[in-house]
């Protein structure tokens, strides 16, 4: 692992691969090489026109004072300097971080037991799998609208139902206090999104060879130990995927805060994307909004790399 030769070897293979790919080796007739390029061309055109060009434009805009109305003015890196002292943005980032951590833990706290639950053969297992997964196919917008209604203190479900059950003696509006509103949104997202993690973890669990499980139980490994030393290492890959998906979605969360509480109560739920949207489309500072987007984007790429590194699977496992 730590031998000095290792990096060099790896580099060479990579170079070789690149060279081979450049030469277009692979045993197919030379003229068909162009057919290959032709086949991927539509995809490249779309991605260039509607992804790469906008991306470059965002970078370019971030170097300008670019009002929504009026003429843009080049200001170099000043937007990035402004960012350093923009407490609102840092608050929003902090909120997104907090939200990401809480919601990810909550999702896995629900998804792990349920994944184990639906992995074992039992009556109605197909029904259970479908039920747990069904909310995932809803749009986040639909789910948020649904939640706004259910949480409405006067016309919704939660507060009137608890009143009828006699659990509370007067209407309670969960969206009123920052903490309860936060919890309410977490519950919504867990309901809406844990299905994805359940299915991914389930796939991982199903891929574990039965002999291994049996061997473990013969060895007398129990509960947590078995999970920690046998199950978890084996589902590391799927766990990593579920984790990255959950983290990415959470860092970019916007719809639920916008639709359910409009960033409130008391501005307590302004996420990073929300802040960028406000900067661009409420304050009309497109240039600064672009700079914030670039920062968020860099952060996200970094996060994914860190996660992949931490959860990398060693060869042969």
């Amino acid at each position, binding site marked *: 692992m730590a031998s000095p030769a290792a990096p060099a070897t790896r580099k060479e293979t990579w170079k070789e691969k690149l060279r081979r790919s450049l030469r277009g080796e692979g045993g197919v007739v030379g003229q068909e090489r162009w057919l290959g390029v032709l086949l991927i061309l539509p995809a490249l055109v779309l991605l260039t026109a509607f992804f790469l060009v906008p991306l470059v434009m965002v970078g370019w805009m971030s170097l300008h004072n670019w*009002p*929504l*109305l*009026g*003429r843009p003015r080049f200001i170099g890196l000043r937007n990035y300097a402004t960012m350093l002292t923009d407490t609102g943005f840092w608050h929003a980032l902090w909120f997104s971080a907090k939200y990401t951590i809480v919601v990810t833990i909550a999702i896995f706290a629900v998804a792990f037991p349920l994944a184990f639950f639906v992995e074992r053969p039992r009556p109605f297992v197909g029904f259970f799998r479908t039920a747990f997964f069904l909310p995932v196919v809803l749009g986040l917008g639909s789910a948020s609208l649904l939640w706004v209604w259910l949480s*409405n*203190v*006067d016309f919704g479900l939660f507060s009137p139902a608890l009143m009828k059950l006699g659990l509370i003696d*007067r*209407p*309670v*509006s969960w*969206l*009123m206090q920052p903490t309860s*509103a936060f919890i309410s949104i977490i519950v919504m997202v867990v309901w809406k999104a844990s299905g994805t993690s359940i299915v991914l973890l389930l796939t991982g669990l199903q891929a574990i060879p039965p002999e291994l499980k049996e061997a473990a139980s013969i060895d007398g490994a129990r509960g947590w130990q078995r999970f920690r030393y046998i199950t978890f290492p084996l589902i590391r890959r799927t766990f990593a995927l579920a984790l990255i998906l959950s983290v990415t979605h959470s860092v970019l969360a916007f719809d639920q805060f916008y639709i359910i*509480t*409009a*960033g*409130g*109560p*008391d*501005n307590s739920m*302004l996420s990073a994307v*929300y802040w960028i949207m*406000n900067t661009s*489309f*409420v*304050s*009309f500072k497109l240039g600064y909004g672009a700079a914030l987007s670039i920062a968020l984007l860099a952060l996200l790429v970094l996060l994914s790399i860190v996660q992949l590194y931490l959860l990398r699977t060693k060869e042969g496992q």
Partner: protein
Amino acid sequence: MKRRTFLGAAMSAPMLSTAAWSQEPLSMWARSDVANVIRPFVDTFNAKGKTQIKLDIVVAREMVQKYAAAAAARSAPDFLLLDLIYTPAFASADQLQDLSPWTKEMPYFESLSPAHRKLGELDGKLYGLPFSAEGSVLVYNKKLFREAGLDPEKPPKNWGEITDAAVKIRALGGDRYGYYVPGAGAAAFRFLPVVWANGGEVLSADGKKATIDSPQLREAIGFYRDLWAKKVMPESVVADTGPDALTGFAAGRVGMTITGAFAIGVLTTRYPDVEFGVTPIPGKNGGFASFAGGDNIVVSRGTRRLPAIREFVDFAYSLEGQSLLGKYGSLPVRGDIAAAALKENDPRYLTVAEAVNKGGRTPRSSVYNDLFNSLNGPWVTLHQRAIFGNDVDGAIAQAQATFQRIINEAN
């Protein structure tokens, strides 16, 4: 030779194009809030058979970005009805046509709504002409007043009377509440007049200085805190960003709320059972104020359809045009013929029109959206934190600092 062609072209072009233009309809935008008024208004105008207008309704809160994007793509409409508070931002961004030459031909110009004209001015030019007016007033449920032992023909004239009436109505019990204002949004239209009526001021005259921290504003907040502490407002106010502003009142469960002329139409047509009165928003010891809202007619810089647009403007300022506004639930902008224009209307419209004419104001700022409109902006935050939270001083200090920072950044 070359020169003659050039001259010839220059002379014939306008004539030719006028002919061509009269075929092609004028493009016009208006925000969704005023769709009920502007649709029939444009239909009536088009029915005259001269210039035709193609009207697009744009969702109110997306008006600015959509216009900006359209302008960038050179597909901006010839003219639009712009929420008047945006006029300074559009004018200072160099998007609009100076309309001051027209005003000399308008003998009634001085009688047009002052708040609209003030917001249309920039550096001695006029970029917006008033189209329709709106104003905030206090509405109260006469039935609940009677039930609570109050005189339904004597609306509250000061804060003490509001509190008193609200407590009495709440005492009726059940789900009946004395007062309602959305806590988390729409706070400029509803709360600024409370401060103004108390002699308070939140911006300096030139819009460069925030003057949030004043005894008058503190008193206004104290007034609302007291209402909240006395539990005369339902819990749901805290989370309401505006969608439910009228829900309770329309259901006959709320004694008083602050709203605008639009609500008169909504209540009379959709909730005919609610028996309500309209009165100006009073100050602590009397007096009153109103948030003057409404739309300005603004013209995209570079349009070549000025004469056609002028036709529309003249129609809008005719008695017929002004009466149409009243007919469809908005308020006329010509003070000199307002009473005549509202002759056919529910008399409660006139109460609003007078509240606006005598006590109507609008903050003038090119960062209005940031300061007052944004649900996450300092004004809404102040409203929410200071009235429903525990740290009044902190909320005021923070609002003052945020206001000033946003203003400074814009200059």
